[in-house]
């Protein structure tokens, strides 16, 4: 126990000086879903698979929208996407003041 105490006095802190030192995420980290909307065919597979009903696809208007607050970043939509235009990003979604839907459109 004494050695631990002495070590702790001279050792750098175990915590990170966030936000001055940014957190480096792993390649695998499930942060947020991103879409390459150009490749999207708006089939709605992701909407049907999403366990938390965070994704809405409008085929007629060619709109893909996601509620970042409802998304649990499970990656089920990424697995289901037939065109592989969805991908899992290792950065978390940015904090927001309002619960707004994020809209991606093929315009």
């Amino acid at each position, binding site marked *: 126990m004494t050695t*631990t105490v002495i070590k702790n006095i001279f050792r750098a802190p175990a915590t990170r000086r966030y936000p001055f030192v940014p957190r480096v995420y*792993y390649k*695998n*980290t*499930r942060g947020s879903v991103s879409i390459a909307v150009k490749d999207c065919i708006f089939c709605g597979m992701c909407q049907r*698979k999403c*366990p938390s009903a965070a994704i809405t696809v409008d085929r007629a208007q060619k709109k893909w929208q996601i509620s970042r607050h409802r998304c649990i970043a*499970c*990656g089920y939509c990424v697995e289901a996407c037939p065109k592989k235009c969805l991908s*899992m990003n290792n950065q978390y979604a940015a904090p927001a003041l309002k619960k707004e839907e994020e809209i991606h459109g093929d315009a």
Partner: protein
Amino acid sequence: MSKRTIIPFGPQHPVLPEPVHLDLVVEDEKVVEAVPSVGFVHRGLEKLVEKKDFQEYVFVAERICGICSFIHGMTYSLGIEKLMNIEVPQRASYLRVVWSELSRVHSHLLWLGLMADAFGFESLFMESWRIRELVLDIIEETTGGRVIFGSCKVGGVRKDIEDTSLKAITVKLEDYSVRIRAIADIFLRDASVKHRLSGVGKLSREEAYMLGAVGPTARASGVAQDMRKLGYAAYPRMDFSPVTETAGDCYARCSVRIQEIFQSIEIIRQAAASIPGGAIENKVSGFPQGEYFARTEQPRGEVVYYFKADGGKFLKRLRVRTPTFANIPALVKILPGHELADVPVLVLTIDPCISCTER
């Protein structure tokens, strides 16, 4: 006779992050009776099987508990695979063992920290959680999530760990086990800690058996009951025997959990050494039909999943009996006769997970 009063313990109590309520009937400072009440965080997850299809429900099952999440998802998958007669690839079974044991290591380290905090040893609490954080890093690196692994699915696993990474993980864990050994020595040898835990909350072997205690709570009383011995996933090919103690007090329960950390590290080493190659998932087609009980060992004890399916997309009924639920009768049994100041420590020794209990 001194006057009896009722002291409420919880639902919000500093020792627990989760809401459980105990009405403690005390005479002076001595507890004579404890009346538990749960139900503050009921989320109706069992009912959700009617809304989420059987493959989607894995994500819900994982969220029953924030600590033993992987094993919940795995137990659910095991049950569905049994109902649908799906063969799981060998490699997937081994990976399930690795992740189960990693979650056991991090859960027990979490418990050790909470325990140290409960008996007032702040720096030991910090040290336990510092090591736990390193284990969480391994989990995040391999699955993508810190506590919600999301890597188990019906028919196999979602992610693979490369053989070189597996070797690296075992080397890392060997390194951490030296540090865990250092804190384990304080838990097991330090005079003040020993004095605080020894002889407190005795549960005899008969009582543990009759009250249906599970996991470390039962094993600390000498009941050598470990569901991993039932042989699910790749456990039949692992060489280990249940850790037991005979004293049945808080010290014994602490000792069982510490030994289990090292046992888990050893199982991960064995699995990494003998993991076969090949696919990690099999295709799932059709729908589940029939009834099945799936039982696995969580860090806190045995979890039972009951499935009832009628060949449709949704299950008819899902029932989850979690280890904390099974251990509450044992808790109510050990509380009477102890000082009020012992109650937080006693409540913690069953490693309560209230979200699990209420689902």
